[in-house]
C-alpha cells in the first residue's frame, strides 16, 4: 500500500556548502532563466535553492547572429554568444528585483581575458545581494589564440587564481566538459582556490540541414544541452566528486526529480536545471514537489542522507 504522503512529516531538503545555505538543492542553470524576472510569473522564486543569473561580462555583449538554436534528438544546440546587459547594467537594473527574494543569488560571469574576469569579479564582490559567483571558464582566451580557458589546465589555474585574489565571496567554478579528462581541470580549479565546482556546461556539437547543406546554427558549432547529455554529465560529476574535496554542483539534462537524484546520489550537493525551464517554466517547481515525494516514499528524512550514497 502507498503511504499517505500528506500525513507524513516533510523531509528536510536544505543543503549547505561553501558558505551557502540553500532551502533545497535545486537551482536554475545560468542562461536558461534570464535574470529571474522572466520566470516570476510562473513560479515563486522564494522556493528555489538559489537563483542563478545569465552570464555577465564587463561590457554588454551583442551575442551571435541567428539562427542561434536548433532542436536535436533529446536536446538542443545553442550558440547565443553570451548576449548580456553587462555587469554594471546588471547591478543597476536587475539586482534590485533579485534582492526582493530570500533565495541566495548566484551571479554567473565570464571574460575573454584574465583581466576581464578579474574586473567583473571585483565589481560583483561589492554588491550586497550577491551570495556567490559562478565563473564560466568555457570562454576563449582572446590573448592566447582563442583557446578556451577551461580546456587548458594551466590557463584555468591562472585565471581562477587571479579571480580568487579579487573576490572574497564564495567562488564556484563551472567546468567545460569538452576536455579529455575532466579530473585534471577540476583539480586545477580546486588548487587555484575555488570553493565549489559546478559541471557540466554544454558539450560542443553541430547539426546540418541536408536540404540547404548549411549548418543549422549561424555560428556553425554550438553547445548541446538537454536530456541527451545527462549520462555524460552524471559520469563527469561522479569522476569529479571522486577527485576533489570541495563541493560539487551537478548540471546536465535534468528534466525530472529522478534525474536530479542521479546527481545527488553520485555526490553532488546541489543541482542546476537548464533546458527543462524552456520546455516548462514550472519545471523547477515540479521537480521540487516530486523530490519531496520521492524522499517521503523512500523514507529519506533528510536529503543530505542521500547525497553521495552511490552503491558501487
Amino acid at each position, binding site marked *: 500500500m502507498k503511504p499517505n504522503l500528506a500525513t507524513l512529516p516533510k523531509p528536510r531538503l536544505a543543503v549547505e556548502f561553501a558558505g551557502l545555505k540553500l532551502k533545497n538543492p535545486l537551482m536554475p542553470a545560468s*542562461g*536558461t*532563466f*534570464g535574470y529571474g524576472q*522572466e*520566470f*516570476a*510569473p*510562473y513560479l515563486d522564486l522564494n522556493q528555489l535553492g538559489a537563483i542563478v543569473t545569465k552570464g555577465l561580462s564587463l561590457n*554588454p*555583449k*551583442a*551575442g551571435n*547572429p*541567428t*539562427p*542561434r*538554436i*536548433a*532542436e536535436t*534528438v*533529446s*536536446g*538542443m544546440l*545553442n550558440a*547565443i554568444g553570451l*548576449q548580456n546587459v553587462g555587469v554594471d547594467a546588471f547591478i543597476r537594473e536587475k539586482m534590485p528585483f533579485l534582492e526582493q527574494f530570500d533565495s541566495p543569488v548566484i551571479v554567473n560571469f565570464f571574460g575573454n581575458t584574465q583581466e576581464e574576469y578579474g574586473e567583473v569579479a571585483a565589481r560583483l564582490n561589492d554588491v550586497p545581494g550577491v551570495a556567490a559567483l559562478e565563473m564560466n571558464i568555457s570562454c576563449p582566451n582572446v590573448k592566447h589564440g582563442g583557446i578556451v580557458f577551461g580546456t587548458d589546465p594551466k590557463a584555468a589555474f591562472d585565471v581562477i587564481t587571479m579571480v580568487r585574489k579579487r573576490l572574497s565571496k564564495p567562488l564556484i567554478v563551472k567546468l567545460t566538459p569538452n576536455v579529455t579528462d575532466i579530473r585534471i581541470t577540476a583539480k586545477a580549479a580546486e588548487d587555484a582556490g575555488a570553493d565549489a565546482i559546478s559541471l557540466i556546461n554544454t558539450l560542443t556539437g553541430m547539426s546540418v540541414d541536408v536540404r540547404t547543406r548549411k549548418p543549422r546554427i*549561424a555560428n556553425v558549432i554550438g553547445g548541446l544541452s*538537454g*536530456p541527451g547529455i545527462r549520462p555524460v554529465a552524471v559520469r563527469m560529476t561522479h569522476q569529479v566528486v571522486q577527485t576533489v574535496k570541495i563541493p560539487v554542483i551537478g548540471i546536465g539534462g535534468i*528534466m525530472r526529480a529522478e534525474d536530479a537524484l542521479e546527481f545527488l546520489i553520485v555526490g553532488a550537493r546541489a543541482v542546476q536545471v537548464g*533546458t527543462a*525551464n*524552456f*520546455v*516548462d*517554466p*514550472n519545471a523547477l517547481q515540479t521537480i521540487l514537489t516530486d523530490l519531496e515525494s520521492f524522499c517521503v516514499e523512500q523514507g529519506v528524512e533528510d536529503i543530505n542522507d542521500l547525497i553521495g550514497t552511490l552503491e558501487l
Partner: protein
Amino acid sequence: MRSEEKKHKMKNLQTIVLSNQEISPGYFRMRILAPGYKGTAHPGQFVMFRVRRSLPPLLRRPFGIFQIGSLPADCEGMPEKEFIELIYKVVGSGTEVMRELHHGDRIELLGPLGRGFEIDDVAGDKILVGGGIGLVPLYMLADSLADRSRTRLLIGGRSREDIITVTEFERLGVTSHVTTEDGSLGEEGLITRILERKLDKYPKAKVYSCGPMPMLRAVEAICSARKVALQVSLEALMACGVGACLGCVVKGREHSEQNPDYLCTCRQGPVFHSHELDWDRLEKSAEQGKSS
C-alpha cells in the same frame, strides 16, 4: 493600447483537445479547451504548444491564436467552455505529432504570449496582407477593427489548397482578394501587386501583415516607399517563448556591434512596427519561414 502580456494571467495550462480537423490538404484546425483566454488574449499573441509529457519533440512549438470562443456548458450551473483555435500546417516532427491528436487528448499551452497588434479605434481604411498560414493572427485582428466595411483582406498562396478560412473573414464584413501563384484560385500572381493597387486607391490605409519573409520584405518596401504605417508579425525559432533563451532575437533599427539592439520576437514581438526593425539586416534565418 499595445497588448502587453498580463503577468498574473500567464500560466502553463494543462488541458485537452476538443477537435482537430484537416481543413485543406496539410492544414489542420485544432480547437483546445482554454479557460482564461477570453478577454485576455489580444490579436497577434501566440501560445507555446506541447503534447503533454511527450518526448520527443523536446521543445514546445509556437502558434498564433486564430480565434477565441466558447461553447455552452455541459450542464446547467457549470461555466461555459472557453476555447481557442489554432490553424497549423504540417511541416515537421512536431506538427506531425499534432495532426494525430483527437478529442480528449491531453496537451499543454503556455500563453497568451508576446505583444500583439496595436489597434487604433479610429475607423479608417485597413489592409491586412497574409501569406498562406500567415493569415492566422489576422482573423482576431479583423474582428477587433472598428469599421470592417473598410477593411480589406489580401491573401496570397502558392495554390488553392493554401487559401484557407477566407469565407470566415468575409462573414466579419471584410472584403477579400485572393491571389495564387499558379492561378488555381483568385488572380494569378503575387499578393503584393494587389497591395499596390489598393494603396493607389486608399493611400492613407494602415497595413498589417504576416507571412513568409520574402513577402514581408516586399510589403515593407511598398509601404515604406509610400510612407504607409505597417505592422508585421514575425516568425522566429523559439525555445522558451518567455524571453529567457535569447534564441528568437531580431535586429532592431538601432542595432550595432557596440550598441546591441536585439529584440526578442517572443516578448517584444511577434508583432513589430516596421520602423522598429532593421530590414536590411534581418537575418536570413527568418527567411526559412515556411509556407507561402
